[in-house]
């Protein structure tokens, strides 16, 4: 791997200054995606700014209406959190199913969202629950956050501080993990809240997206049966050696129905 300058700022403010000062700076949090990328020499950042152990970014706070999770909170911490399990069990389940135990020990929610890997789990929850991403500069609605393959609304130098999730009436998450690697081929998060029904899909497209046809069908009847007839088009979906676009489209329906069964269960 190429060499780089390493910084370990003591505060978020210092991290922001370092990131803005660097020629081509990258944030290092859990490193579970960044390190493989660097090792394959697919990226050549000038500076790494390590925010992995900034205490101010690692927290979980819940009131009755929302759950707020700090950007460097580890997946394992979210999965085990009594507050998250009580308020949004589907979110805790999602966090507990990311990758394998080692990825959950090290990976962070902020890192997952900022990277916007098409196969990441969290984007489905963020989008379906209508979460808000709080950064050093602003609050970004989930619907405005994911822009494309490894592309988000984040501007250079902007750092995710936390994510707040409104507590839904019902929610469920189901994914089809690739055998062996456990990568998410397709994950569907369904949510029913006072503001309406939202269905978000990850793994299938360049980035997480909402499935509006299903949302419409579920508005009056939040059940697996209601989406039996919804056709999912393979157009624009990912295809790779393990999984065709047609299969992904098929799995969107299967996983959505299973997620609904779980949400209602």
């Amino acid at each position: 791997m190429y060499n780089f300058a390493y910084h370990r700022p003591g505060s978020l403010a210092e991290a922001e200054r370092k990131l803005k000062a660097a020629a081509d700076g990258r944030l290092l949090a859990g490193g579970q995606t960044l390190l493989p990328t660097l090792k394959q020499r697919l990226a050549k950042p000038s500076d790494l700014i390590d925010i992995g152990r900034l205490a101010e970014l690692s927290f979980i706070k819940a009131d009755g209406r929302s759950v707020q999770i700090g950007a460097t909170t580890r997946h394992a911490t979210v999965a085990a959190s009594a507050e998250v399990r009580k308020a949004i069990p589907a979110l805790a389940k999602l966090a507990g199913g990311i990758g394998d135990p080692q990825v959950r020990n090290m990976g962070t929610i902020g890192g997952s969202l900022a990277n916007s890997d098409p196969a990441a789990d969290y984007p489905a929850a963020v989008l379906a629950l209508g979460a808000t991403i709080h950064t050093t500069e602003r609050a970004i609605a989930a619907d405005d956050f994911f822009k494309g393959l490894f592309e988000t609304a984040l501007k250079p130098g902007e750092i995710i501080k936390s994510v707040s999730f409104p507590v839904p009436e019902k929610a469920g998450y189901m994914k089809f993990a690739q055998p062996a690697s456990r990568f998410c081929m397709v994950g569907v998060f369904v949510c029913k809240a006072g503001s309406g029904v939202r269905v978000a899909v990850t793994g299938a497209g360049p980035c997480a997206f909402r499935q509006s046809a299903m949302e419409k069908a579920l508005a009056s009847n939040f059940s697996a049966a209601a989406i039996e007839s919804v056709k999912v088009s393979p157009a624009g979906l990912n295809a790779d050696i393990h999984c065709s676009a047609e299969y992904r489209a098929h799995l969107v329906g299967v996983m959505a129905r299973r997620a609904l069964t779980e949400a209602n269960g």
Partner: protein
Amino acid sequence: MSARPARYVGQEILRREDDYLLRGEGRFVDDLPAPIGTLHLAFVLSPHAHARILSLDADAALALEGVVAVLSGADMAALVKPIVAEIEFPGYRRHGRQVIAKDEVRFVGEAVAVVAAECPYVAQDAAELVEVAYQQLPAVVRLEDATRPGQPQVHDEVPGNLYFEGRFATPGIDAAFAGAAHVIRERFRSGRVGGVPLEPRGCLAVPEHGDGMVFHSSTQVPHLLRTALAQYTGQPESSLRVLVPEVGGGFGTKAQIYPEEFVCVALARRFRRAVKWIQDRREELLTDIHARDHLYEVEAAVDDTGLVLGLRASVWTNGGAYSTLPFGCTLETTGGARMIVGPYGITQYAYEARAVATHTTPAGAYRGVAQPTCYMAIEGVMDRIARRLGLDPAEVRLRNMVPTASLPWTNVVGVRYDTGSFVESLRQAMAMIDYAGFRARQPADRLVDGKYRGIGICSFTEVSGTGAPGWRARGLVRLPGFDSGIVKVEPTGKVTAFVSHAHSGQGHYTTFAQVVADALGCELADVRIVEGDTAATPYGTNTFASRSAVTGGGAFIRAAGKVREKLRRIGAHMLEASVEDVVVQDGRVHIAGVPGHGLSFQQVAETAYAMNTATLPEGESFGLEDSDFYDPPLVTMANAAHIAQVAVDAEDGRVTIERYVVVHDCGRIINPMIVDGQIQGGVAQGIGEALMEEMVYDDSGQMLNASLLEYLLPTAADVPNYEIAHIESPSIDTVGGFKGVGEGGVIGAVPAVLNAVADALSRLDININTKPLRPSLLARLIREARARPG
């Protein structure tokens, strides 16, 4: 041997290897201390499947601090002769390989230059800086395309990209088909996979004593490697010592001899410095031999009772870009063609077998070699016969098997099955999995709780312990066949036993000690095994193809028997008894029936080594050691039956293995725990091969999944518990009665899993004739089947 009851052979003795491995003290090749001043190698790999090398510019790489040299193919050609697999077989076309490509590259990953630097990071940085200009050429990638007219040629010496073409037919084959009530035809296509041991390859060459060389390599074949290194680099064999450290899994892939090993030795000679190379995972997936890229077109002539009257097989294997030492690229071809008849009494048979050249990674020996795919074919045919005739698949097999009463049996290609239990193994496996009960419970549509349920069988014979005639029959004239052992009672009475093998996880230190202790008549704790060192151990064929129990065990029994006789002679002399009255037992030499009247090994050894005042018998030589070689028969046939029970999710296509039963017969068992371990590991590899593993190439010859994130290996969550039982039919043709077991797991699992899925989906009229069976494939087949009218 059989006259004495075994004390250790047959026992579940815990492994001696475990303590140091569990503490992290196992020393694998990358863990060995490298001398100060060691040069580290990094190879520059071709990004193209087929291209002409126009120029190579190493200036930027050489400018990097710590880089000592960058060598091109032409530079290396002056140091290492082109590698030629010396196969002598009608229909085989020889061709050479430069250890570093000189003018033309023939697969993605082939080395075009090597960097030697003072640190491995610098070597890798420098390899990135070597500028190579290529003229890209069209590539031929698929087996199906290789021999079509107008395709790019891989080698001038291999016209039409046909490495090998062989034919065989019994005189009555056409008549068998002419008179048959039914002819079943099928085409089976197997995806390409690799051994993928957890430890990548590596080597370290250390010059010593002027012209001497110690070569540490993660190899399964130290003796063959040493000869090849001497032959191609000019390093005298007598001043070259190959040492094998712990090896982190081999599975056959490390039984080939690779270009990097020649380069390492040649550069250590050239620079008179130690040279080290450690492979990374991408290189492992791109350059270690691949296997199983096969196509079988099979037709069976069958009577109304399901009896196979004749079999025709057309076997195609993708040999990749080169023949690799020592097996060449035809091992899979000749193996598949010769082994397909398996446990069945098929007497009329014809094959056409072809190995083709393509611009892909060279093919070679991976655990099971041809057998997972030839049984995919024949066991797939057995199931199709059953479906066509409305018979049970198990019944069709039982009707076609060679019954135990007919053994020894020489099969249609001349291979002798001395003993075995084909029928008994299958019947016992059926009982264990409650086959009849499963069939009775299985609903007509096979669907239970949203999942299609099926059961699949593989009954097979397993080639093991091949002797010289067996390799000759397949054209491998430079593959010896024998292995050898030296058994030595030291002056203190402890026993050191040296064997030509080299382990990569098989537990040789434990199992060979069991064999030696019984054969010599000593305590197990007193025996220590030495292997993997060409300076200490006698020559042999080494460790692959399920050989070590048969060949090493046989050699040890012979050598130990000679030492035992010497112990008796000297002991009898010391006890003033006649040799006939003296026995060697439990580490003592004593008067038969009177254990108290005898001598310890140490007392006898002190006489043998002239360390006391006693004299040797008249004419007896000093020392207390002997050696022997053992070349087993043509092949040693083990056999087994595997039955898999699966559930296929009707919606997402995921296959879950719900139960897995094995009844295995490897003759006399040395250590049941280790035998079970071999089977379990092999079954997991077979499940991976059947359901997820595949080296995927695009049409330009790029491998699309050269990382462990994309080449899928089964995890603990993907495999079931295994239910294993044994039948022991000791071989009557081998010394010791042992048969091999290393490959049975993977051989049986691939067809059993495929057949179980096929059974689960049989009511949907889905034809399962390829692997791997990815969820995406099965979900599509199920969707299409359900959408079909009727």
